[in-house]
């Protein structure tokens, strides 16, 4: 038996497979297909203080080896989440990670405070890396403002605090270090890469918001690189994501230094991808001679190896 459990940053997961924020709603649709307790956890769609409408359509477009989206963080807001979505998710034995968004520090902190103390929340993920809303990348583009945001969130909660860093920056490690200084317990990476699709018939961008976020297998090498660098150079546990489609991809992320991974775009192609990846990861670990996911994580990354021992 392979031990799939993962413990880090105050989180205890039965397996390291989460679902990525914004690709799984609040779990209700996938729950029609399989038991969510099969998962390590769910990172829910970004939650803001007030309800948000999101961007004008078109919101999705195809891209080679993936897709572009410009959803713009449409979500029903904090109260709806606490009253309707969280109680639903709590029925399952897995970790609920609340992805938090806001237009400013106050907006973020109010949601952080609002979910802190709500029973059933395992951790908070601060989304400072959404390219699809005005100011969505504001906190990523300047490490000092990221640090201040994380500090403010830190003061508002004692839940594990994960910060989702952007790949659209010159130096993700600098950003990660700033988040660490601000009091983050862990990092997650990557969010989508800014891209555009052009419609020759309309001689204009395909998406309503002009640009969108690139995700799917196409971004996997970039995600792996950023996770590799963050894991080796920041000294915080990392939740890895970006183009994970198979157990082999998940293992690659773990070997790059991720403590846990999240499955995003792959659930659009295969709604059963998350539980499938749990099974496949187990088989891949076995195939490459590992007894546990934690052992694989410790195997590849010198810094990680030190930290685990």
């Amino acid at each position, binding site marked *: 038996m392979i031990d799939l459990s993962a413990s880090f940053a105050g989180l205890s997961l039965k397996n390291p497979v989460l679902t990525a924020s*914004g*690709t*799984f*709603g609040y779990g*209700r*649709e*996938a729950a*029609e*297909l399989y038991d969510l307790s099969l998962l390590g956890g769910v990172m829910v*769609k970004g939650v803001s203080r*007030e*309800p*948000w*409408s*999101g961007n004008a*359509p*078109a*919101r*999705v*477009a*195809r*891209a*080679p*080896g*993936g*897709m572009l*989206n410009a*959803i713009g963080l*449409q*979500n*029903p*807001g904090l109260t*709806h989440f606490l009253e309707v979505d969280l109680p639903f998710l709590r029925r399952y034995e897995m970790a609920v990670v609340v992805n938090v968004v806001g237009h400013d520090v106050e907006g973020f902190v109010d949601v952080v405070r609002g979910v802190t103390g709500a029973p059933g929340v395992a951790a908070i993920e601060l989304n400072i890396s959404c390219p699809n809303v005005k100011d969505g990348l504001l906190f990523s583009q300047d490490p000092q403002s990221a640090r201040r945001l994380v500090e403010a969130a830190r003061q508002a909660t004692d839940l594990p605090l994960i910060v989702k860093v952007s790949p659209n920056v010159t130096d993700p490690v600098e950003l990660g270090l700033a988040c660490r200084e601000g009091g983050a317990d862990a990092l997650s990476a990557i969010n989508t890469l800014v891209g555009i699709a052009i419609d020759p018939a309309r001689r204009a961008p395909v998406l309503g918001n002009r640009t969108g976020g690139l995700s*799917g*297998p*196409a971004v996997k090498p970039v995600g792996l690189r950023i996770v590799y660098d963050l894991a080796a150079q920041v000294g915080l546990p990392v939740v890895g994501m970006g183009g994970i489609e198979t157990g082999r991809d998940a293992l690659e992320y773990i070997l790059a230094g991720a403590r846990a991974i999240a499955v995003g*775009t792959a*659930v*659009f*192609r*295969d*709604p*059963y991808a998350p539980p499938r990846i749990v099974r496949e990861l187990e088989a891949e670990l076995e195939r490459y001679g590992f007894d546990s996911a934690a052992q694989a994580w410790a195997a590849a990354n010198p810094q990680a190896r030190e930290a685990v021992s």
Partner: protein
Amino acid sequence: MRQWELVVAESLRPAEGYVELRCEAPEAIETAPGQFFMLRAGEGPDTYLPRAFSWYRREDPRRVSFLFRVQGPGTAHLAALRPGDLVPATGPLGRGFPLPGRPVRAALLGGGVGVPPLWGLARALRAQGSEVLALVGARSRAHLVGVEDLRAEGAQVLVATDDGSTGYRGPLTDLLPADVDVLYACGPEGMLRRVQEISLAGGPEAYLALEAPMACGYGVCLGCVVERAEPDPALGEYGKYQRVCREGPVFAAGEVRF
């Protein structure tokens, strides 16, 4: 909604640029008229996302067909499939056409790739005793699909083409008789708007089957939204949009704003 490994049984070419893919399912699948499936449409780089298709002609619960026009890489891939090839599919998805509680006189309007969902609807309406008038539109005679199949289900079919190469020359809605109880429409946005107008201006109740670019097809990505005509105030800003894949693809004429 479930996932299925469909197997291609036959691939037909009913009209220029159109393919009817007849597939076998591993077991019986129950579908309502207006529902759709997400089909995996290739392993290539441009077909990472699955593509949405209404189900078409089904006599046998273990078979399901799709009728589509070749437009881009996804439909090109599906068009090239041969008997025995696999088509992973998720479905049935979405909310289909509501059937009237009693026998009525129904008009079904289908333009271009809007025809497929009307077949199941015609059959269901006939089964509960309704009279079905199907108005079928196409660019020209060569692009016309579904006419014989709809007739076989007992629908009276009228045809319109953009170029007049067969049937009436002009918009389908010109062919609408005054005395129908309910309208069902699927096709280009212009046609749906017109049906919406007719209905909201005191005409018969109408149901519109919408399309939108989709990523997931089952409600998790929020990619396929269309504006709600009357947002629920309890939802705040969130109420502005609704999902075509989940709240639709069929909406009552009064529910959507184009």
